């Protein structure tokens, strides 16, 4: 007890130099906890990109690739699937709803997704949340567009603005569908998913802008105006993929097998949850790297503490001799250093945790506006507690070095240090 009191008084006496040590520990702990928080949030945000969808169906390729282009808007489909096949499968009595998806065009680097009204009725993300509109309403006409939150914000679009869709998915495209502009009728609320970076139009709209194209290229001399296009049959012949909701989730594997065995066309159905987990596993390396880096930062912070403890050894020699003279054992001297490191580590952990808590609350409005992510309030869970315990343990381990040196010295010096 007296040792603890001595430790606190002694620390307070040297507070000016120790404050910096404390801060370096606190910051490294905050980084460690922050990285852990981001890792968990990123994972849950990733796994929450799509929810409530039982199957994603596309041309036969790999399940991860199918997920990448249909849900994350990364990469391209190897092939399209026919409208006929889509209708066939949608008619399966086990299927409750479907959402067709048609990809391949873009607007200023943002992917354009052709779909129908079912998208707004059935697509769910996060905790089975439906899409919400920040402004406006779903598209109704052929040349209407609904923008994701980020598209509207970054490009400064408002309801009623006209946008031109470019052919292909690259950020700079030289072939524009500039003869058939779209009008913004709705802007979605932020979701924190790739949906925020998507322009949604109707399948008919996609069909209309390609009506005077043949085999993916404009045919010179053949021009169909927007008004003329509206007169034509805009029923698409192909789509890129579609999502399926089942009446009974238990039937997912049966329907999946049926689709994978579909005779008329090579199709692939995948359960998004499984594919998402696979994909996260593949990306898992970055998690490990992040953790290693933050772990090293903590070690650096604690090494700073060790340096401070070691550098005070000489000036504290007199202090130790006095304590020995009043009856302290060498092991008391040893314990003083361990206690000191313990107090510093615990204070550093508390301060670091507070930094994370305050930092998240402070960053919340900005992250919400910028990324559409709601930062949940940080409360340490058992994993975090384990990390903090590891930090404290490491600090105690480091303190054994100055402790042992002081122990040996106090045996030799005894009562006779003339400083």
């Amino acid at each position, binding site marked *: 007890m007296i040792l603890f009191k001595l430790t606190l008084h002694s620390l307070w006496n040297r507070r000016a130099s120790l404050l910096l040590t404390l801060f370096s520990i606190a910051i490294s702990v905050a980084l460690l906890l922050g990285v852990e928080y981001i890792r968990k949030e990123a994972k849950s945000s990733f796994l929450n990109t799509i929810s409530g969808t039982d199957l994603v169906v596309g041309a036969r390729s790999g399940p991860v690739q199918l997920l990448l282009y249909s849900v994350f808007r990364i990469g391209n489909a190897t092939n399209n699937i026919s409208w006929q096949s889509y209708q066939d499968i949608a008619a399966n009595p086990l299927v409750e709803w479907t959402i067709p998806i048609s990809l391949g065009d873009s607007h200023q680097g943002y992917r354009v997704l052709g779909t129908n009204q079912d998208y707004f009725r059935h697509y769910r993300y996060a905790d089975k949340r439906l899409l919400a509109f920040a402004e406006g309403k779903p598209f109704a006409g052929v040349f209407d567009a609904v923008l994701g939150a980020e598209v509207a914000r970054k490009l400064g679009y408002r309801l009623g603005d006209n946008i031109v869709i470019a052919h292909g998915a690259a950020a700079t495209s030289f072939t524009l569908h500039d003869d058939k502009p779209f009008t913004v009728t709705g802007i979605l609320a932020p979701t924190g998913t790739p949906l925020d970076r998507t322009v949604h139009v109707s399948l008919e709209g996609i069909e209309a802008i390609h009506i005077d194209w043949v085999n993916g290229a404009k045919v010179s001399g053949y021009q169909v105006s927007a008004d003329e296009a509206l007169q034509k049959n805009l029923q698409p012949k192909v789509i890129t993929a579609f999502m399926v909701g089942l009446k009974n989730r238990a039937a997912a594997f049966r329907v999946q097998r049926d689709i994978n065995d579909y005779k008329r066309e090579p199709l692939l159905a995948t359960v998004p949850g499984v594919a998402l987990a696979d994909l996260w596993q593949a990306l898992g390396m970055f998690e490990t790297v992040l953790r290693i880096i933050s772990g090293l930062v903590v070690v650096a912070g604690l090494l700073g503490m060790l340096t401070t403890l070691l550098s005070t050894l000489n000036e504290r020699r007199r202090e130790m001799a006095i*304590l020995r003279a009043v*009856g302290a054992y060498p092991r008391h001297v040893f314990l003083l250093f361990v206690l000191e490191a313990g107090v510093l580590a615990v204070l550093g952990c508390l301060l670091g945790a507070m930094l994370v808590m305050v930092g998240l609350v402070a960053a919340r409005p900005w992250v919400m506006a910028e990324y559409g992510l709601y930062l949940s309030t940080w409360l340490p869970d058992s994993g975090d507690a384990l990390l903090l315990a590891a930090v404290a343990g490491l600090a105690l381990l480091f303190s054994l070095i100055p402790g042992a040196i002081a122990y040996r010295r106090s045996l030799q010096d005894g009562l006779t240090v003339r400083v």
Partner: protein
Amino acid sequence: MDVIALSNLHYRWAGQSRDTLALAELRVRKGEHLFIRGASGSGKTTLLNLLAGILTPASGSLTILGQGLQAMGSAARDRFRADHMGVIFQQFNLLPYLSVLENVQLPCEFSARRKQRAGKVQASARRLLDHLGLATSLQQRAVTGLSVGQQQRVAVARALIGSPEILIADEPTSALDTDTRDGFLQLLFQEAEAQGSTIVFVSHDPHIAGHFPRVVDLGELNQA
């Protein structure tokens, strides 16, 4: 009864070919005030460390309060020192981060015997400080606000709390001017006598020898 009795005591620092200290005989009776004079390098420090049980003699016998120190382990010697000895250094005797009163009470935190003998520790500390002429207003202060003379008196109070049998003083007056020094010695004797403590006082300064009834010259005593 002899408080300290040593005979044929030899001590040699590790790696040295000659003894640092070789004492044929030295006895100190209970309540005696012994002045050990010695120039620097005469082995004063070594002798004090031997008496305090920090060092152990290479040969010969060293008995304090009837107990042979050689027979004890280092932890037992530490305990013995904490229980039976008060130590005063040359200067910087006090922990800068504790108040005057807390500094005085320190030995009672490490020795149950001295705590028990002090009774009400804080009252006992206050009484000693009062006797040593430290005003109540100074007692709650940080020790850094005290003059060197005041600090040395606090050190005396700390060495005396819990009435240890032996008081070991290592040049405690070397940083004091003559007037302060004489006043300091008077208070030291007065309080030590009140408790019946034996004083072993080591210094190179021949001028203070006159205050002591018994003076030993370490240069003569040491045969090394």
